[in-house]
């Protein structure tokens, strides 16, 4: 027990020296609001944080192989959607997008993205969130238009993901945004114009505010 504790302390001291004191400050389970109610600097509830009953040994071998960012490019497909960081060069029109959609998407999603054998509608739903039948579509739900580009590029079409060119992804994104009434039929989207599209649900989100219940531990004649 004693040596495990010492190892943990060493690990924390090393962490603190190497970077910030992540994971080391306030490791006591009883440390006030630590434990169950800890939050990240950005306000996200973390649940319980340290201490941990099982610690690794404190040795720090280094087995990683250095790689350049350029050599990560084929995997580096994420888009930071609020500002579009990560969007590639290229552009695509609504008209081109309709052709891509009909060749590669329609079989599952149906004509005009109104739903098909595999997936429901991808149009409409704006204004439905205050009713008892919230309709989730890219148009009604996504807060930022680049969400659509990111998702199509990483996961669609389902039978051949990561097979579309960036131009095809821009085009099919433009087509779907047009079907949702968010860009005109003659739109041609690139990185800058995609980020500029105003989405109806832009301000529809709130950050986790749990715990949001306050149940009591009644034992007798409770209700």
């Amino acid at each position, binding site marked *: 027990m004693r040596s495990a504790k010492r190892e943990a302390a060493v690990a924390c001291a090393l962490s603190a020296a190497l970077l910030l004191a992540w994971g080391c400050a306030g490791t006591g389970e009883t440390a006030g609001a630590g434990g*169950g109610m800890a939050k990240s600097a950005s306000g996200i509830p973390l649940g319980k944080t340290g201490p941990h009953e099982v*610690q690794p040994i404190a040795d720090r071998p280094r087995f990683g192989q250095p790689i350049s960012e350029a050599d990560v490019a084929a995997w580096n497909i994420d888009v930071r959607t609020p500002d579009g960081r990560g969007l590639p060069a290229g552009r695509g029109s609504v008209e081109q997008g309709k052709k891509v959609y009909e060749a590669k998407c329609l079989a599952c999603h149906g004509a005009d993205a109104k739903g098909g054998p595999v997936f429901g509608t991808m149009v409409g739903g704006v204004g439905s969130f*205050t009713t008892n039948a919230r309709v989730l579509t890219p148009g009604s739900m996504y807060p930022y238009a680049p969400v659509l580009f990111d998702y199509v590029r990483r996961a669609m079409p389902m039978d051949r993901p990561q097979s579309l060119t960036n131009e095809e992804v821009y085009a099919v994104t433009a087509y779907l945004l047009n079907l949702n009434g968010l860009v005109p039929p003659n739109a041609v989207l690139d990185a800058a114009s995609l980020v500029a599209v105003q989405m109806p*649900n832009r301000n529809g989100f709130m950050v986790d505010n749990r715990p949001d219940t306050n149940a009591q531990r009644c034992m007798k004649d409770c209700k």
Partner: protein
Amino acid sequence: MSKDKEPLPGRRSFLRNTAAFAGGGAIAAAGASGAAPLEIAPSSKEPGRPIPESMYGSPSKFEAHVARRRTDVLKNRQNWSDWSMTPLQYQPGIITPNGLVFERHHAGIPDIDPATHRLVIHGMVKQPLTFSMEDLVRYPSVSRFHFHECSGNGLTDWLKPAATTVQQTHGLLSGVLWTGVLASTLMEEAGLDPGASWVLFEGADAAAHARSIPLEKVMDDAIIAYAMNGERLRAENGYPVRLVLPGWEGNTSIKWLRRIKVGDQPWHLRSETARYTDPMPEGKWRQFSMVMETKSVITSPSGGQSLKRPGFYEVTGLAWSGSGKIRAVDVSFDGGKNWREAVVEGPVMDKSLTRFKIGWNWDGKPAVLMSRAVDSNGYVQPTVADIQKSRAIVGFVQHHNGIQPWAINEKGEVRNAIGQA
């Protein structure tokens, strides 16, 4: 599901067995008779199967009904982005066998060769690094018990019963001993740039499923796991390597992990805006709700089972918390009016399944059984009515940690009574 109807052991056999002793009398012919005379079984009269030279063992053929089952309450139109559920009604203890750990995939199960797989860390780091599987297993390791639960566990059963069994209501839940290298070990080797605060994890599956995770969680207890319950990961659970975020909604623990990118804000991907968000009043959506809150469920007796006769039953179930340890579990037999504290069976560990049990003599009258967990922060598991005060229960709702009632009628049949007790 017919096997779910099998009777639980009851009082009559207990009386029969004790009568043999209580009767007392001559040794040879003692006791009342009730049980059939014992005969020598075939297994005693010939050798069994020989030991194969090499094989991976399987459960007895008589246990074939104990299987994961794809969701059939909410049926998906395809089976690539779909899920299968753990048969909790058959699980004793707190560990789920690897072949029964629940599944949730977004584009099917890839078969990835560990010899060619690579994990990369890049973005806001001093030196981007790649790791082979051979590299990863050489680092100092940890093995930790944690529950794993899908944020959608229970989503079909908020206001009225749709599911029959506990496998269907709560089976997106498993208990696993994860082994791997702490994420912090690898992050420190790459070296974080000042200002780093969020980390993207991305899978090598056909959905390239990805989530943005606060750096604090990554550095606290995230595991880059390559083994579960004493063997390498199963393909459906992320082979050869996955992220494990203890206590957080299952989909954040990215399987088939290929890429870690460090940044200074979240990415707001589809999987954290249009999916895995919670409907809230006035048309709002709650985002980044990743902790799985304290919860419990009675697994026996549970929906679809039946009590064949009055008498003694061990009522048992599971409790767990993403916010710490289980401190106590209370059980009610009258639909929540009165509660008794159950026995919590050790080991009791952080963010781990915890087994509770309590003895009960069923009098043959209708009863409604419920369990209620209390965690190490004093948080008490709420009812659905408690949850409804702050959230909108509409559509495809995640994060159901409400109390589950099971109603038992005079015939001993156990039914899901969510929203009715």
